[in-house]
């Protein structure tokens, strides 16, 4: 069973457990002793079942069970022993309050994972105990036939709760003593000239509000670069120097340009508050960097990014190799974006038709500019996934009848030769579908004649990129799962109550904390750095580190068996844990965050910083 499946079973058993103990308490309170005894027996059985499930879950990783093993289950065990003891020795009626207390303890165990993360903290334990105590006292007061004096107990419960609250409000510890990062990142030198043979490519991007018309005629109020969404296509040849001047006309919250997946010098990274100040209306910022990575990339604002990118502040960045021969005659860049709920490829919602002669080499560059993953399927042809996140794969094999899940922010380059005849089931020609939808945000390549019925790709299996392509021989790999790592960071992703930018909220958390309280990760230049990213929650988290690409080592403990997979964004689904690594070679202070930009705004972000 998958880890998330086990988590679901655990939640279900926890729900039954709470219901059984509470039911036993309620029936005892209302004088139905027989039923209370039967429910207690059931509650004990379910509690033991929960122990078994937690033991199974522990096999998937300590991160998934730490709160249960160290707190929730021992406390429930204690409450259960007391309740059963009183029930056996003094009867159901006398056991009312202990049974209800066990019910409250079980309820807290059910709710705890939704509020606290990994590692569970002492303040959270104290507050839980205080709440269980308060509920128990209230139940005692309400169910007791004679008046009870609960005063000193109330004081004790309140003291425990206050102690917990006080501990929780203490400032979070910053690794390496509360250093402050300002805008003086000591990054790599910014290039001032192109590489030999390259040229300077200048672009001017003005951020402004505009009404954008999609291909179907639907108008949408967008935030744009130069009045269009997506913004202008930025293209370069390997070795060129890109010089992009950003100005802001009327985006009141400010804008920047972040070069997603491009390992630019720190000062060019576009992270507001970290590498530059946001460009406010009337302001400007010039970005310069060498186009030294070939492939499919994109740019977007990083200021209030969830809203800004959603409204249209993004565009594509394509860098082609210097070697003159183009690899494909038809080379299409297809940024997937959802405008007000309408899925589009670029600005094309609906079906885009294009005539492509048979035998033509085709390259499709699909970019997910949304905050959620998309399922991409290519019907009507066998194809190769030649690059992921701009990085070429090693010996990618030909596949067909499979779909790929594209992480938020991620890119796939597909290559194929336009087939000589239509494959059965494709509806004629080649179709690229987003989320298996044949009519919204779809691309159809054919011989020019109207294409027929739409292919149904919804039952296609998902291609596992971890076993796609072939590995490099051991000497060629720069490092791997067996390497000795200088730094080893663990990030456990979850939801919970946490402070985010000084305000308490139901946050998306890293190790139980929200931005900017998540300790900064410190590395030295030259370090081999390993990250373990665990998703303990119920939402998908596309993880994105600025300034570096990471080599995937393993997922859920299974090593990559196919082509080396260099990614800048990897989708950590609920219950998964990924191990990835990098060589620290780009000095500065970098954002390390969830690329579901709403999650990042709600706390799921931290910094990685170079010493010295």
């Amino acid at each position, binding site marked *: 069973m998958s880890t998330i499946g086990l988590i*679901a079973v655990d939640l*279900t058993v926890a729900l039954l457990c709470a219901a059984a103990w509470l039911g036993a308490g309620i029936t005892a309170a209302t004088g139905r002793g027989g039923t209370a005894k039967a429910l207690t027996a059931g509650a004990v059985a379910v509690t033991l079942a929960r122990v078994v499930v937690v033991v199974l879950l522990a096999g998937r990783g300590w991160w998934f069970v730490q709160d249960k093993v160290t707190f929730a289950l021992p406390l429930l065990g204690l409450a259960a022993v007391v309740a059963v003891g009183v029930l056996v020795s003094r009867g159901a009626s006398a056991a009312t309050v202990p049974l209800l207390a066990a019910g409250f303890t079980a309820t807290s165990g059910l709710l705890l994972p939704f509020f606290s993360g990994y590692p569970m903290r002492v303040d959270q334990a104290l507050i839980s105990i205080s709440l269980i105590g308060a509920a128990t006292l209230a139940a005692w007061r309400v169910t007791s036939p004679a008046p009870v004096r609960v005063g000193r107990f109330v004081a004790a419960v309140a003291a425990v709760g206050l102690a917990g609250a006080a501990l929780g409000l203490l400032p979070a510890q910053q690794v390496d003593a509360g250093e402050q990062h300002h805008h003086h990142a000591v990054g790599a030198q910014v290039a001032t000239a192109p590489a030999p043979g390259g040229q300077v490519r200048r672009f001017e991007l003005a951020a402004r509000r505009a009404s954008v018309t999609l291909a179907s005629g639907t108008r949408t109020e967008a935030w744009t670069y130069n009045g269009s969404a997506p913004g202008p296509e930025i293209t370069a040849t390997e070795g060129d120097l890109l010089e992009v001047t950003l100005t802001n006309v009327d985006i009141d919250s400010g804008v920047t340009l972040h070069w997603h997946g491009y390992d630019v010098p720190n000062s060019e990274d576009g992270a507001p508050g970290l590498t530059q100040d946001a460009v406010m209306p009337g302001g400007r910022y010039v970005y310069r960097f060498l186009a030294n990575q070939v492939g499919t990339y994109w740019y977007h604002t990083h200021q209030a990014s969830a809203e800004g990118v959603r409204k249209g502040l993004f565009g594509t960045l394509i860098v082609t190799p210097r070697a003159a021969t183009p690899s494909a005659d038809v080379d299409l860049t297809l940024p997937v974006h959802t405008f007000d709920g*309408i899925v589009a490829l670029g600005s094309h919602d609906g079906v885009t038709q294009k005539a492509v002669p048979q035998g033509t080499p085709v390259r499709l560059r699909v970019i997910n500019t949304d905050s959620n*993953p*998309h399922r991409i399927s290519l019907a009507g042809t066998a194809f190769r996934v030649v690059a992921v996140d701009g990085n070429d794969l090693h010996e990618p094999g030909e596949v067909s009848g499979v779909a790929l899940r594209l992480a938020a922010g991620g890119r796939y380059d597909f290559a194929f030769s336009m087939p000589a005849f239509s494959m059965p089931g494709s509806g004629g020609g080649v179709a690229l579908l987003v989320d298996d939808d044949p009519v919204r945000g779809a691309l159809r390549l054919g011989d020019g004649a109207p294409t027929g019925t739409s292919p149904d790709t919804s039952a296609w299996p998902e291609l596992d990129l971890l076993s796609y392509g072939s590995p490099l021989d051991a000497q060629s790999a720069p490092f791997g799962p067996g390497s000795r790592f200088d730094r080893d960071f663990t990030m456990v992703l979850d939801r919970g109550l946490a402070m985010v930018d000084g305000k308490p909220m139901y946050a998306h958390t890293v190790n139980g904390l929200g931005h900017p309280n998540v300790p900064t990760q410190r590395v030295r230049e030259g370090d081999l750095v390993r990250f373990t990213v665990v998703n303990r929650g*119920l939402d998908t988290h596309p993880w994105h580190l600025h300034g570096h690409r990471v080599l995937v080592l393993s997922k859920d403990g299974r090593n990559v068996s196919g082509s080396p997979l260099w990614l800048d964004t990897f989708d950590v689904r609920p219950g998964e844990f990924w191990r990835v690594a990098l060589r620290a070679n780009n000095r500065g202070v970098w954002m390390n965050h969830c690329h579901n930009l709403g999650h990042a705004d709600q706390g799921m972000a931290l910094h990685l910083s170079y010493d010295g």
Partner: protein
Amino acid sequence: MNQAMRRIYVVLVGLLLASGGLQFYFAAVGAFTKPQTEDSFALHTLNGRMVFPILAILATIAAALAKAPGKLIGLTILPLGLGIVQVLIIVLGNVIGGATEQRTTPLALAILGLHAVNGMIILGVIGNVMRQARTHLTAAATAR
């Protein structure tokens, strides 16, 4: 004093009933919003996660202060517990049913549909609480 508290209790239960009823209205608003976005159910989410739980807790405190019978106090907190079940139905339905961000499954939908059934149960419970709270109020009035 007690009479006033009992009246406040009835009023709070009335607000809880209204909040519960509005959930159905907001659900329909969300279901018919086009295009569907994450914001379509914003009113339903806000009312369900914030307003309703707070009203349920306030009503329960009022029940205790109004010296309602223990059984009625317990019944007043029940909608909160069932509200938690509402969230768990969605979480567990998606996970057990194997639904993804893009696509639900028949099994997931079979479980997710219970969200409406449990919603009706919640309304029924609040209706029951309302009846008993009013009886509690009338009892105080006649006892005077």
